């Protein structure tokens, strides 16, 4: 069935709430307003206000409420209206959710999902346009998934809800209206397993989240020029599918790592670390990273466009690692 990324997430929530009455959704505007991005449309009517809970604008507070509820057996899905607001809640995500199992000596696991839109949209300026995955992926105890397609959005969110650990679901604000095929019936995507979104032999693009769409555009564009790209969608940035990265680079001997966020200590740095260690003798060129400019996100349309990693930069990077004239 063709559906939108938004409806895919909604299906995942509905199916898991029907399946398990310990699952509830909590966040700002999730109930009466039907979701700031309408992901939770209809859920209040179906499940009632105990299971679809509007909160005050208190990210720290309701994230912590979720952790406590998870410690005693519920399975909360905590929606952040955007991950930009979740910074206020990071103490609960990092110091409570991620560490509880470990510091309790294995006694208290925290089966919770923190989800919401991540990354830049359009002209929302510095405080509303950030990609947080490298912050979150840094933390032992968390799993971090970054679905790019409706099918992965549904399958990964369902897996996240069933996982007995805290799972971060980073949705793309610009992806909610994108459409794609979702398999009929029960559809789960395992956490920690990448997917080759395009098969090619000339260069690997290792990417995740919204940038997968850019990589596929690049693959289409370059295919017309006789260059085939192997597009690896990590889907999970923690745990990361190392064998999938290695297999791709060994096929192509060249790699571009494409990410939405900043370069310093970014996810791409982690990928490059894997590639240099595991594929040193396979590489025919240095790996190149494509990423956001090293500045807060500007408002002006032209500056924002220049700040974001895009199709042109990606194609240029591929040509550089292939030593082809741009």
């Amino acid at each position, binding site marked *: 069935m063709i559906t939108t990324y938004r409806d895919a997430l909604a299906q995942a929530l509905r199916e898991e709430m029907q399946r398990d009455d310990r699952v509830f959704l909590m966040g700002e505007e999730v109930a009466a307003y039907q979701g700031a991005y309408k992901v939770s449309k209809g859920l209040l009517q179906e499940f009632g206000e105990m299971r679809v809970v509007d909160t005050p604008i208190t990210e720290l507070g309701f994230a912590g409420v979720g952790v*406590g509820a998870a410690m*005693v057996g519920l399975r909360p899905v905590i929606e952040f209206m955007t991950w930009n607001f979740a910074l206020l809640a990071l103490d609960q995500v990092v110091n409570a959710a991620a560490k509880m199992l470990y510091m309790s*000596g294995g*006694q208290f696991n925290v089966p919770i999902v923190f989800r919401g839109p991540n990354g830049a949209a359009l002209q929302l300026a510095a405080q509303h346009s950030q990609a947080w995955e490298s912050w979150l992926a840094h933390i032992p105890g968390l799993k971090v998934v970054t679905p790019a397609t409706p099918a992965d959005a549904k399958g990964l969110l369902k897996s996240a809800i*069933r996982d007995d650990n805290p799972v971060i679901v980073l949705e793309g604000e610009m992806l909610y209206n994108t459409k794609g095929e979702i398999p009929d019936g029960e559809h789960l995507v395992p956490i920690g397993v990448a997917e080759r979104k395009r098969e090619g032999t000339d260069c690997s693009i290792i990417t995740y989240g919204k940038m997968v769409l850019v990589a596929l555009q690049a693959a289409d564009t370059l295919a017309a020029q006789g260059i085939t790209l192997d597009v690896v969608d990590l889907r999970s940035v923690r745990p990361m599918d190392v064998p999938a990265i290695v297999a791709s680079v060994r096929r192509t001997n060249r790699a571009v790592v494409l990410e939405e966020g900043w370069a310093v200590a970014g996810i791409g740095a982690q990928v490059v670390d894997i590639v240099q260690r595991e594929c040193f003798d396979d590489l025919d060129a240095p790996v190149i990273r494509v990423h956001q400019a090293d500045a807060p996100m500007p408002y002006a349309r032209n500056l924002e466009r220049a700040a974001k990693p895009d199709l042109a930069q990606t194609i240029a990077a591929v040509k550089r690692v292939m030593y082809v004239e741009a």
Partner: protein
Amino acid sequence: MLLQRRFEERCAEAYALGKIGGFCHLYIGQEATGTGAIATLRPDDYIVTTYRDHAQAIARGIAPRAIMAELFGRSDGCSHGKGGSMHLFSREHNFLGGHGIVGGHIPLATGVAFAIKYRGGDQVCLCFFGEAAVNNGAFHEALNMAGLWKLPIIYVIENNRYGMGTALERASAINDIAERARAYAMERAVVDGQDVLAVRQVVGDAVQRARTEQLPMLIEARTYRFMGHSMSDAVSGTYRSKAELDEHVKRDPIVLLRALMQGNGEIDDAGLAQLDADVRAICEDAWQFADASPEPPLEALLEDVTVDTTS
């Protein structure tokens, strides 16, 4: 309370010997607050507390052996040596930690109460924190939700007068901090935190109300810590005077209870001596047990980071 006192005296000794490392915050002087409050709970109720947690763990019934072994960083510790002094946990006792970020556990405790309500249970959650935490955003966010959603939780402020070295009146715009409950449509009470029976009465009433009417409450127990903030902190001389400390030590909760019980003829000198000998023996046993317990195996380093299961 006497067990808690003697236990923590041994903690101080062990810390000086290097058997306990890291941060170690003693509850000496505050025992009546935790003991009176925890005495009102059923086994299926929940406790979420701060890093000053040893004595409350004892009050909840966690074995002194398991607590001392945790403080020694050993595998038989109640958190298997992974938590230490600030992170005592026991699922068996619904003791949900020992938390190290001031105020950070208050939303978490509120979530436990949310879960109770979600399931339609009649349990309650008891949440302890110091007076310094009431200036923290987490406190306000959590109490607002508890008041808004009418959750079965009792927040107990252990007002020991100092947030580390900063006196209440130097940190809070109001000094009657229980008044903050008004902002959240919540009942409040102030109790003498050195009087274990008074604490039990006030918290007991709150527990009953939370259990039957699912209403939260904020209780300020006025107490005093006789030791420094942690083992690295001087007992007096910097932020509080020796004279102030001495004045408060006169209201040692154990001395007060002993006088009451002796006055009522509930215990005599011989009985007290026996009790003291008994608890000292328990503490010695805990020490020996902890000392003999093995360090966690190195494989444990990477265990319990995540679980492998789904539900």
